């Protein structure tokens, strides 16, 4: 029995177990983002089910929304493809439930905007998400000022509420951001939308270091990370690296569903290999 299986049985959350195990391996987690139902239900299901084998440690699954204000063109288009092909909140939860039938260890974090959850009904959503096997939520438009809406109820259902810290989060703001955070902290590497410009390496490393002084939660870094090389650089000092738009682009540029699945999984494998090796070469030599 692996360490992960043991801890799950001891009621530790999947996210905690995952980060604990990766700490032992001394490597960061690879977090992938895909929009649920993109490009359509069946391909999306195949994409999702193949992620762990391709090397993903934590799955972020986007709940498509018609007006994704914090997303760049790639994820906007992904949401539209999914919605045009009939994706709903209920279908997204059903995807997670089916995934859990064959995988009980890989954490799944649902990411999206508040309105579809609000319309589904917060209590009903949390109950259904919990029973489907959802581990955490990232809801872009719910800052700590609205914690009573979803963050606090989620905790009662045992679902982590992953908070975003950003380049605009100053020392005054940070305690508020960290107050009810759980699971991990998602550091948004650049002020902007998803899929935008790449972060500046030096500034990013010092921001993560600063964040680490204020929290014991694992720190994931995302926004603008597209290549294995970028992932490796950032993975040396962060606990997780999130790649989204680059994967979603593979779906957009594929000519067939099979090609979409192959391209996404092959990019994931490349990224996975890179994050697995990223700290080996950079260990300082003690003379």
């Amino acid at each position, binding site marked *: 029995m692996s360490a992960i299986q043991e801890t799950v049985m001891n009621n530790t959350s999947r996210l905690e177990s995952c980060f604990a195990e990766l700490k032992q391996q001394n490597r960061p987690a690879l977090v992938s983002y895909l929009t649920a139902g993109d490009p359509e239900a069946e391909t999306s299901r195949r994409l999702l089910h193949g992620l762990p084998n391709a090397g993903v440690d934590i799955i972020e699954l986007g709940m498509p929304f018609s*007006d994704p204000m914090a997303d760049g063109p790639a994820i906007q288009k992904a949401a539209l493809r999914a919605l045009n092909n009939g994706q709903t909140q209920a279908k997204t939860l059903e995807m997670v439930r089916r995934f859990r039938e064959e995988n009980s260890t890989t954490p799944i974090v649902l990411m999206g905007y508040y*309105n579809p959850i609000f*319309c589904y009904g917060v209590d009903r959503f949390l109950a259904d998400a919990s029973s489907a096997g959802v581990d955490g939520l990232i809801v872009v*438009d719910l*800052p700590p000022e*609205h914690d009573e809406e979803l963050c606090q109820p989620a905790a009662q259902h045992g679902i982590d509420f992953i908070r975003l810290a950003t*380049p*605009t989060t100053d020392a005054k703001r940070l305690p508020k951001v960290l107050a009810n955070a759980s699971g991990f902290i998602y550091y948004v590497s650049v*002020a902007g939308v998803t899929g935008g410009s790449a972060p500046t390496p030096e500034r990013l490393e010092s921001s993560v270091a600063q964040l680490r002084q204020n929290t014991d939660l694992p720190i994931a870094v995302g926004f603008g990370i597209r290549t294995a090389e970028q992932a490796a650089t950032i993975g040396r000092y962060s606990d997780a690296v999130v790649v989204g738009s680059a994967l979603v682009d593979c779906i957009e540029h594929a000519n067939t569903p099979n090609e979409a699945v192959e391209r996404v999984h092959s990019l994931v494998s490349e990224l996975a290999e890179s994050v697995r090796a990223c700290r080996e070469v950079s260990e300082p030599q003690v003379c």
Partner: protein
Amino acid sequence: MNQPVDLSNSLPDANGLFGRFGGRFVAETLMPLILELQDEYATAKNDPEFQRQLAYFQGDYVGRPSPLYFAERLTEHFGGASIYLKREELNHTGAHKINNCIGQVLLAKQMGKKRIIAETGAGMHGVATATVAARFGLPCVIYMGTTDIERQQTNVFRMKLLGAEIIPVTSGTGTLKDAMNEALRDWVTNVDDTFYIIGTVAGPHPYPAMVRDFQAVIGHETRNQMLEKHGRLPDSLVACVGGGSNAIGLFHPFLDDPDVKMIGVEAGGKGVKSGHHAASLNGGTPGVLHGNRTYLLQNEDGQITDAHSISAGLDYPGIGPEHAWLHEQKRVEYVSATDEEALEAFQVCCRQEGIIPALETAHALAEVAKRAPSLPREHLMVVNLSGRGDKDMMSVAHHLGDKFGVKQL
């Protein structure tokens, strides 16, 4: 003169809530900025120098106060209530929008911002923003949906003349909601130097309260003008509602006067039952979009649906959160007027008063047509003539051109 109780001091609450509506549903990147804006605005509100500058520009640049005009021929035409028009279309740039833009650009200067962005639907807010940006020497970027660019080409040209850069928005239906998404994306990317001038009483707190306060000059003037003319308050107020800034500007100073009836007119498009409309209160449900909780046009899964209106300025699937609250409090009655009713009222206003109203404003006039005839002459009804219709000539020609032997402009 008795000063009305200023509800702006009670609502929204510290979290920007009007009851369960409003709030600050934005990405964390924007939160520090929004909190800073809230503080800056609170300071400016009580700063005599800021208020002096605001009054100066409202007077000498915008041309306030706008007249409260007795529409004698319109009154005769409908044969009932005495109809007064609050002439916001006489403001510089031709609509009420500039009242708010002047206030916000002064705040932007005070905060040391170097760049102005805005969204626009009909283009009136875009023109007003481009105007104040030119006056204060700030570069200006306007987001506008491609559908709206098509039907509001005169305003697009005006904005360009004023030095603004127009960025066409193709996402969604290419209308106001999509322009607002894109402006929010710009803002989140350029947080350090950019001020976002939101054009209506929507968005995250403090925008709904701040825009309302800047527009409340309409209601304050109306109050004084009516007291001067008749020694009493009006009996009813009528205004069109998209996001709802001209309506809240007129209504707000009267909220604590129970005898003053208020009617907000939403865009009924092809009819609220047809599904092709922009009537969020009459045909929508509560949800969260663009930073606030309010009534929205959406499907049962929380996906925002397309609004429809002949008037680009009302073509928005939401409404300001304070209107949602006033609707549930039943303080304001919200009705709707169809495209056809608005076009009819538009022509009546042209013919009877020699005033070409904006198509947005024509929705308010359509409600006057329904309501005024059965009221007595002593009933004093004020309509917010929120904008002039020059910008709508292409749309109107498209719908009515045949009648005048005009095919296309």
